[in-house]
């Protein structure tokens, strides 16, 4: 059997969905970050699948920009997490409610 682009798109859809559900379900900030990485990877896989299907290498060039954004996001995001954890240990995403109106 031949593996067409649709197979790759279906796998990418699966990875994206698992990442999205994980982002909604988990409360550990670092694991939520990993779920974002999963979703970015699914997008990369889609880019590459269409680059092959359309015989257009620009899809592969775009993956580089996704990689750069992912790297920058992880650097800044983990910096923020380190800064938060220095103040309050063991905080989950639900504990970070400084901007919430407590009276309501």
């Amino acid at each position: 059997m031949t593996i067409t682009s649709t197979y790759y798109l279906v796998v990418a859809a699966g990875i994206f969905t698992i990442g999205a559900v994980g982002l909604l379900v988990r409360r550990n900030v670092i694991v939520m970050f990993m779920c974002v990485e999963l979703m970015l990877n699914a997008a990369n896989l889609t880019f590459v699948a269409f680059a092959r299907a359309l015989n257009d290498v620009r899809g592969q060039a775009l993956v580089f920009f996704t990689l750069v954004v992912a790297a920058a996001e992880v650097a800044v995001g983990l910096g923020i997490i380190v800064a938060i954890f220095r103040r309050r240990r063991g905080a989950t995403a639900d504990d970070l409610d400084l901007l919430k109106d407590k009276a309501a």
Partner: protein
Amino acid sequence: MTAVIFFFAAAFALGGALGVVLSRNPVHSALWLVVTLLAVAVFFIQQQAPLLAAVQIIVYAGAIVVLFLFVIMLLGVDREESLREPIPFQRPAALALGAIVLAEVLFLAGHQWATGKTADSLHNIKGGATDLGGNVERVARSLFTDFLWPFEITAALLVIAVVGSVLLARRSGQPAQASIEPPSESTVQ
């Protein structure tokens, strides 16, 4: 043979993704993430993108996951997460939303009005999905001609990210000490 490799890699990719979400321990999540990243690298090789496969392994598995593990170990957050649900019905709602997202994405992947043509019929364009040969040269030509301006902007983005993370990792009110963020991802890029 291609099909066998594909289904193996697909099983590893989806299994690794599930492992990331289902592991109680963040360290295990990070290791499952590596499994998924390597499986996606296999997909890249199968899709005639060997350069991206190498970059995927070096940048993701080499830099980003190591950064994750660094932060997990520095902060000591590798405790198990409690199963308590702070918001009632959060998990069922999340699963329902996930099912909707999956249905939407699969619908888009298979339908002509979203992608212009169905993905399978695209193979007939310009003699089909021929060899994207000379992959590095073609990607580099595209990157430095079509995408030259975005490429320069990403350089600025990386510098801003490095400066920002150093600033965040610094203890306020003290002069900058040894930064907690290793600058690995900036040098890899």
